[in-house]
């Protein structure tokens, strides 16, 4: 038994050595866990595919070609991924402040409807593009920020947990925008000439320039969202505000003691989170759709949660994770066409990725919530060796 202990300790030392080398080499410490999760999910997915009688390699080959098989495929994959960057940032930023924002779904809708409304205002067509485009993006960002800020305010004023309030606000805005877009009597935002429920088209001046005419269109919104990731990374790592956000996330009690206005940080972090989702929605409205339809953003917010956790809330890693996520969705139709494997298999693989990542991350997150709730009588585990 003693021998086994020592052997364990030896393996532990070797593992920690490897871990240290990885850390030094990549400087993105916990990300390799995510790589394992992706690998594992594809293996399990492959088993599933062979169970339905298809050679998984055939299917995956088709998927891969659908994702990156040519210029159009690559552009389409990137285009599909862009909004996911924003919805993932919406989770990641709040996460750093110790908040679990699962309201990106609603914040996208709030941002999208605001952008579509502002973009379709009659005087927008009189403005030049360099004014109209920032305006529509700012409008969407503000819409998301307000919808994200509300749960922050509720948290600080009433103690309502943001997990609950963001879920509620998701439903509220979903049914709200559906009504606004569907209703003919009274007409709220519906384009009455269209047969499908949608808003009026935005002004031509507010349309983001196109980069590649792929399916979907790759537009300049890419730069906005990738740029934001680097800005967020800088803010979190190097700025005073980022330090406050991180401190509140790690220890709100010590933050309060040290003079940080914890409530202000909570509201600001939630609003910023919502803003990222709102920006993503506005860029889609402006660059891809040209109008607002509630279904456009379906599940995009929840996918953002998965992407952010896959990236371990690292803003730069989010770019890679979102690209993977979006291109898998973009490549799936070719897999269905060529190998006769349903698109849903990709969804299953993605769900498994989330499962493998979150089984760790969510559990730890919830565990930390527990630790904050320190009862003086809590039975603690045996203290360390020293």
């Amino acid at each position, binding site marked *: 038994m003693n021998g086994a202990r020592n052997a364990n300790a030896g393996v532990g030392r070797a593992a920690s050595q490897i871990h240290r080398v990885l850390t030094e080499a990549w400087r993105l410490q916990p990300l390799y866990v995510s790589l394992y999760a992706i690998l594992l999910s594809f293996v399990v997915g492959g088993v599933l595919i062979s169970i339905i009688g298809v050679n998984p390699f055939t299917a995956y080959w088709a998927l891969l070609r659908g994702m990156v098989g040519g210029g159009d495929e690559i552009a389409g994959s990137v285009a599909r991924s862009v909004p996911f960057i924003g919805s993932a940032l919406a989770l990641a930023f709040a996460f750093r402040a110790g908040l679990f924002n699962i309201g990106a779904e609603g914040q996208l809708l709030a941002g999208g409807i605001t952008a579509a409304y502002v973009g379709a205002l009659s005087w927008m067509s009189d403005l030049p593009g360099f004014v109209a485009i920032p305006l529509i993006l700012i409008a969407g960002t503000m819409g998301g920020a307000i919808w994200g800020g509300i749960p922050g305010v509720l948290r600080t004023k009433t103690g309502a947990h943001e997990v609950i309030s963001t879920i509620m606000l998701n439903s509220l805005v979903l049914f709200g925008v559906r009504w606004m877009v569907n209703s003919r009597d009274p007409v709220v935002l519906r384009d009455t000439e269209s047969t499908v429920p949608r808003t009026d088209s935005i002004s031509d001046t507010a349309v983001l320039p196109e980069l590649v005419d792929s399916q979907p269109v790759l537009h300049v919104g890419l730069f906005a969202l990738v740029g934001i990731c680097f800005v967020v990374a800088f803010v979190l790592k190097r700025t005073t505000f980022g*330090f406050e956000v991180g401190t509140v996330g*790690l220890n709100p009690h010590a933050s309060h*003691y040290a003079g940080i206005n914890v409530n202000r940080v909570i509201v600001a972090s939630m609003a910023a989170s919502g803003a990222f989702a709102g920006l993503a929605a506005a860029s889609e409205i402006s660059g891809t759709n040209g109008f607002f339809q509630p279904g456009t953003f379906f599940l995009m917010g929840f996918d953002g949660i998965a992407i952010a956790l896959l990236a371990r809330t690292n803003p730069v890693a989010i770019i890679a994770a979102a690209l993977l996520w979006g291109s898998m969705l973009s490549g799936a139709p070719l897999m269905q066409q060529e190998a006769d494997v349903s698109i849903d298999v990709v969804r299953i693989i993605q769900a498994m990725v989330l499962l493998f990542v979150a089984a760790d991350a969510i559990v730890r997150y919830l565990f930390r919530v527990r630790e904050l709730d320190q009862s003086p*009588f*809590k039975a603690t585990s045996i*203290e360390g060796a*020293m």
Partner: protein
Amino acid sequence: MLEVEGITKAFPGVVANDDVSLTLNQGEIHCLLGENGAGKSTLVNMVFGLYRPDQGTIKVRGEEVHFEDSGDAIARGIGMVHQHFQLIPVFTVAENIILGNEVTKGAFLDLDSARRQIDSLAERYGLAVDPDATVGDLSVGEQQRVELVKALFRDADILILDEPTAVLTPGEVDDFFGVVESLTGQGKSIIFITHKLREVLAVADRITVLRAGQVVGTATAEGATQQSLANLMVGRDVVFRVDKAEADPGAPVLRTQDLRVADDRGVETVTGFDVEVRAGEIFGIAGVEGNGQRELVEAICGMRPTAGGRVEMLGQETTDWSPRKINELGVAHVPENRSKHGVVAQYTIADNLVLNRYHHRKFSQRGVRNTGAINAEAQELVEQFDVRTPGVDAVIDTLSGGNQQKVIVARELTGDLKALVVAQPTRGLDVGSIEFIHRKIIELRDRGVAVLLVSAELDEILSLSDRIGVLYRGRLAGTVNAADATREELGLLMATGSSEGQR
């Protein structure tokens, strides 16, 4: 009863126990004395089966044992009361005691018979516990008695008590010593871990002193003095009397009037507190814990809203100001709860050292942190305050409690201070760190800072303060000059709120 021979235990990078031997006779209290990190806990954790020794043997009643886990140790009649209690707050006393060793009748718990056993144990050893009380409602002292009964319920003859008095009030400590003596009187043997010298001399039959994992001395209580034990523990001559000149108090700096503060449950625990602390004096607040100390300190420093009355600092009313505004006025605060308020455990030493001034111009320009300046400042403070660390970029959680406290003290005691509020500044620290922190506080006083010191350690209050106030049920029961104060007088005030000793 117990013989430990030549035990060695190494952890990665450190030898926690190096050839340690110890014997425990029946009916004896054997004190294990040493600074934090000397290896006391490692040693008893091996005796209790939580760690396995690398070398050496453990014999119980003459028989060599190899424990796989603590269950084996319990089966051999060894019981341990940890410093942090292992109780479930929502369970009753009886449920906690039988947990893991349930008395059953068929498929059901037999709580009645458990209650009877607990009552008889309680009576026999003078451990008053109510089997039906919920543990979360009990005081710390009562919870400790529950832990003791729990060990006795499992038929322990050898009891290991890990820093049992660290959490107790002076009165509770006396009760506890009574219990310990009744236990040994009835044949139980006790290993008592502590770093408090007075307690060692009060209860120990024999004493073993550990330093850096090695036994550096053994003594009997008769042959030892506080000075000789402290020198052994630290490895050099320790100065007990804090050298300090006569105070030269100036203008009032901190004043409260009829201050009232509620605790987290909304109960007013500070009930009309008046005090005036002048520049260049240390005003010590003594009192049994739970008499409003925490709420008082938090309200003065802006961390907790007041329920009435006023706080004035430097001639301005600062009632319900934010912690930052009060801090910027030149008021520093060493908080009572180190891990909850004092540090961010995951941050580096450097980030912890600027935790309350990361936003100052020196460390942040146009909203961007100046890590160069932060690290330089941290390096300087680490040297100045003798923080033992591999570097300022080490995560603070890797430091010992004493060094973490030095980081907090370094952060709070620098800058242009006018007033300092310190709560339990040396709790759980070793003699060397205590000496250091005390010296720093006196230095500040001599520079004209007004110091409000709150401590549960009467010795600390007596040796540092110039004036002493006793906090009793949320108000000052009396104020005395430290020069005239006696332990007895203060003890009486702490216990009854009046110096006449009548309620």
